[in-house]
């Protein structure tokens, strides 16, 4: 078999093997059980609690969790606006980069705050090192917030009947210190050895082979890149993101960066299983996610490796695959694979230009974000998946002749209402956003890199990426305008916090209900049959909501090309 493909399979296998023990470790961390890292982190955390005056044993109900979560985010928002709008005159700016305008700072702040990292600036010229470090901080804490929200849900299903769902700050801090930080440190060490820059010096100057002098941007890249992936953030240090040679120097870093994206979302699935003591259920979730992931990834690898028929017609050798917009050191297979990894997992880092993907590859990238629950972001993925589970439980519960119940809790009108609002919010944000952009050509037509179907795909991609908190772009779009900054900023906010509030509320409401023991008539949710049902619900909702839009974008482009 092709070594390019073997490399992908090996990377995927290693991730799975490591995700299971990591999941067990994560479950222990959140359950407050002893782990081998206790001696290191106990004193650090105690210091945090002492300084902040927070009592980590203070139990909260689901509403208090949400209040804590939203408050802390508001604080970060204000701090972020302050730093980004003034960093030009603050320290750690050897290249003398300017402060951001208000609308760009708003977009940047929001997009980093919501774990999305839709960047409407370029790292080389648009931000100082202080700004980069601040963004790196946000990359840690927002991933921690997503994970903490997921743990509230975990906790709600672990207990039979309770309103006490643990302490938000405890979950949040542990996510950052005990999970994200150690993994990021290991990755950073690998990256430094592979040649990633780690310095506070300004631009370097080199003389290239042609004898020209070139200014090369650098900075604390090796510190930034690990959490960019481990926290499923995806915001690049440089404008070209993972396609930049200093941000992704080698085939090894390419694979390690993909591992970094995969590991937390996968491990969280297993952690869920360990935490609620239903490992089979975790495998059901993992199975559905993996089947969905592979159904998107395999065609993409195939299409990218097969090349573009239009290029072949021009008589150009296309045997390396569709190489437009790809890095030769990474290749078509790894790029095609990455394009789905980064879109299913809401990372949004790229190692090739998605704008140049084959039409249906582009569609799969869009679909991955439209579904946004195959693995998904750190913590956020499980929350999204929960909504689909609730819908599947409801329909399949009826089909077996029982009032639907999940984990021993009856699903009733209130939960359905929340689940439906969240399920609706995603297509609403994407379709209405795109419709606005299409209806207001005075703001958008000049920013599109391509006319016709592909231009439509660029707009659709921008809003899909925002609503899914992904952050990747169909990079043809000239997106640093007031229109794009503000409209995507709003979509980002709603796309982040609604899918956190909804599932936490559902879990909180379910936790308060009476626990119903399982009987032979109860529909088991840890079976492949139920997995199939969940998959069908996901596929049908995504297909039904987005089919007309996709038909006018990538599908029309595909039929025009072939």
């Amino acid at each position: 078999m092709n070594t390019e493909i073997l490399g992908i399979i090996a990377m995927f296998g290693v991730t799975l093997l490591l995700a299971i023990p990591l999941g067990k470790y994560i479950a222990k961390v959140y359950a407050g059980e002893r782990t081998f890292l206790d001696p290191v982190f106990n004193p650090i955390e105690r210091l945090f609690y002492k300084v902040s005056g927070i009592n980590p044993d203070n139990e909260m109900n689901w509403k208090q969790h949400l209040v804590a979560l939203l408050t802390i985010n508001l604080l970060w928002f204000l701090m972020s606006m302050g730093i980004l709008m003034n960093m030009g005159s603050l320290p750690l700016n050897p290249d003398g980069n300017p402060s951001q305008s208000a609308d760009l700072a708003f977009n940047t702040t929001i997009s980093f705050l919501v774990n999305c990292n839709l960047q409407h600036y370029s790292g080389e010229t648009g931000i100082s090192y202080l700004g980069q470090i601040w963004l790196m901080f946000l990359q840690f804490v927002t991933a921690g917030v997503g994970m903490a929200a997921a743990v509230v849900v975990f906790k709600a299903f672990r207990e039979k009947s309770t309103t006490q769902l643990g302490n938000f700050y405890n979950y949040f801090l542990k996510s950052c210190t005990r999970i994200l930080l150690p993994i990021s440190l290991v990755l950073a060490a690998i990256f430094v050895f592979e040649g990633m820059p780690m310095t506070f010096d300004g631009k370097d100057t080199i003389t290239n082979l042609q004898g020209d002098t070139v200014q090369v941007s650098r900075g604390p890249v090796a510190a930034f890149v690990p959490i960019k992936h481990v926290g499923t953030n995806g915001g690049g240090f440089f404008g070209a993101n993972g396609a930049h040679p200093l941000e992704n120097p080698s085939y090894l870093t390419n694979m390690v960066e993909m591992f970094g994206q995969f590991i937390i979302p996968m491990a969280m699935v297993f952690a869920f299983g360990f935490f609620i003591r239903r490992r089979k259920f975790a495998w059901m979730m993992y199975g559905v996610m993996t089947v969905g992931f592979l159904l998107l990834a395999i065609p993409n690898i195939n299409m990218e490796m097969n090349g573009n028929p239009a290029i072949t017609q021009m008589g150009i050798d296309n045997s390396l695959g569709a190489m437009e917009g790809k890095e030769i050191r990474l290749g078509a297979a790894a790029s095609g694979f990455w394009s789905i990894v980064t879109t299913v997992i809401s990372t949004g880092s790229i190692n090739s230009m998605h704008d140049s993907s084959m039409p249906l590859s582009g569609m799969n990238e869009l679909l991955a974000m439209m579904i946004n629950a195959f693995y998904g972001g750190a913590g956020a993925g499980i929350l999204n998946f929960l909504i689909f589970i609730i819908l599947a439980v409801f329909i399949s519960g009826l089909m077996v002749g029982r009032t639907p119940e999940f984990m021993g809790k009856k699903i009733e009108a209130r939960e359905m209402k929340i689940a439906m609002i969240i399920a609706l919010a995603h297509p609403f944000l994407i379709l209405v956003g795109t419709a606005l952009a299409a209806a207001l050509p005075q703001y958008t037509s000049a920013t599109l890199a391509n006319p016709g179907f592909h231009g439509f795909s660029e707009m659709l991609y921008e809003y899909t990426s925002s609503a899914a908190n992904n952050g990747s772009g169909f990079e043809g779009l000239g997106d640093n305008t007031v229109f794009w900054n503000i409209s995507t900023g709003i979509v980002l906010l709603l796309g982040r916090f609604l899918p956190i509030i909804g599932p936490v509320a559902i879990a909180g409401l379910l936790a308060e209900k009476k626990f119903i023991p399982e009987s032979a008539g109860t529909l088991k949710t840890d079976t492949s049959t139920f997995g199939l049902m969940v998959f069908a619900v996901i596929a049908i909702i995504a297909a039904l909501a987005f089919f007309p839009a996709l038909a006018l974008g990538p599908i029309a482009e595909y039929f025009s090309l072939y």
Partner: protein
Amino acid sequence: MNNNKNKLFEPALMNEALKQSFIKLHPAKMFRNPVMFMVWIGTLVMAAVCVWIAFGEQSQGSFAYNLIVTVILFATLLFANFAEAIAEARGKAQADSLRKTREETPARLENGETISSSQLKKGDVFICEAGDIIPSDGEIIEGLATIDESAITGESAPVIREAGGDKSSVTGGTKVLSDKIKVCVTTEAGESFLDKMIALVEGASRQKTPNEIALTILLSGFTLVFIIVVVTLKPFADYAQTPITIAAFISLFVCLIPTTIGGLLSAIGIAGMDRALRANVITKSGKAVETAGDVDVLLLDKTGTITIGNRKATKFYPVNGVDEKHFLKSVVLSSMADETPEGKSIIELAGVNPLSYQIQNPRFIKFTAETRSSGIDYDTIKIRKGASDAIKNLVEKAGNHFPSETEEQVKSISSNGGTPLVVAENEKVLGVIELQDIIKPGIQERFERLRKMGIKTVMVTGDNPLTAKYIAEKAGVDDFIAEAKPEDKMNYIRNEQSQGRLVAMMGDGTNDAPALAQADVGVAMNSGTQAAKEAGNMVDLDNDPTKLIEVVEIGKQLLMTRGTLTTFSIANDVAKYFAIVPALFIASIPALQGLNIMNLHSPESAILSAIIFNAIVIPMLIPLALKGVAYKPIGASALLRRNLFIYGLGGIIVPFVGIKLIDLLVSVFI
């Protein structure tokens, strides 16, 4: 009363239902059903478009095409209304046939005055004699009578009702066969359970059940998604410079929203209550039927449910040394005056006519709660038969020895589920009679079926634990309450409920009322007391304790029918997309012909085929909605696989075939 059991569409009902289909077009009624209300708005918009074209508008396609679309949408509405109307008409007809029996009968009051039954008020007292039809539901306050309840229950054997106790309730419309009773009216005219049920079916007081509300939320959500999809499609199409007609937008929208389940939803709910009524069970709310499908624990009385009414004598065991013939004679004589079924079965087993024995001065001793024995005295001989401890008491009091052999006999009969009766002559033990419960044939299979549904069965009996255990094992119930007192039932129910289980029980006595009220599904027997009937949420007209099992299946069927038709409805959308989306864009984007995988004739025929399919699928599914999806106790996962295969996969494939066929037909005309 079972005259229309097998016919789904009686001509008389059809007419009524057709009329109702139009009446139900009233916006206030349509508004109750959000999905169909959107179709209603769509139809109005299309009608306006037709008028617009008639006044010369050119951009919206031909007048005929738009008119056809309008008519098909209108038909969709009528079909949905018809489904609800036919379900209502059937339920009403069923209830009417029950009600007919109790219309306008004269009622003789205490003071001799005769008034019409409809004038009776709660608290009135009337008198009925042999031959009278009882004018209203009520409670006997004086007297005893045999009553023919066949008009209600279909059971021809007369029953005895008497004042006091648990058999004091009479039903309006039944006939007194003998004796005279004084009855106090317990319900106001028009407020009987049957009246309440009819009101439920007719929709006047029908409220959506919690599950129906949750499902409506899901369906409204799907409707909203498609509002977003269709509205945003307009700027998308403008961007792609593809003009789309209003007819195409509305058609796409109506096809995508879940009209199939939306149109059938209320019919399914009514049909559920109707099926209960057909099983002769009156439900006080739609929720009760739904809850029955969720029941986890079933409390069943032993007598009548698990065993055939009464115990029967199966064997005689004379004590060593007692002549068998003598024992037989004593047994027969002691049971001569025993009118209980047990007593009769003893004589039956003995096979001797008691009158063949010549005895002097017989005096029959009746059973009392103190002596716990009965018997006969003649000459100098005293024969007693009774419970072993009662006889033992008697024997030992007289200074005689209670044989250990008998002691053992008694124990072994008990542990085999039998009831031992010890017979003594002049305070000396003669032997033991074994009475056995006869377990109803086929009951084991029914319990097995319940177990597969995940329902725990609990037998309630007054028997001692040993006997109860034996019968429980033999009949295959999961648990039992022996020597049950009313409060035991109550405690059992509370305990199960505190663990989150739903409990159903059946009862008849006033004693049962608290437990019936406590149970999630309480089925009161029609023969039971008024208190019991008020406490429960269903009334079984047949007084058949096994009815609970049917009720559970009706509840499950109700939920399943909703679930499967929802799945079918949503799965249909895949094919409809492949019909309509290419039709929308092909004119301006010929490349999208590739999506026309059904190879439909033209954009117009594709759209028409899709909405025609969407409309006719509703009446085609009415029979399924009314009969309900068959429930098979094969375990939840297997059931889900089965229904997912039939209604999910079927829901994807059927419309592809259907739309293609309709297109072939439509293309002949276009």
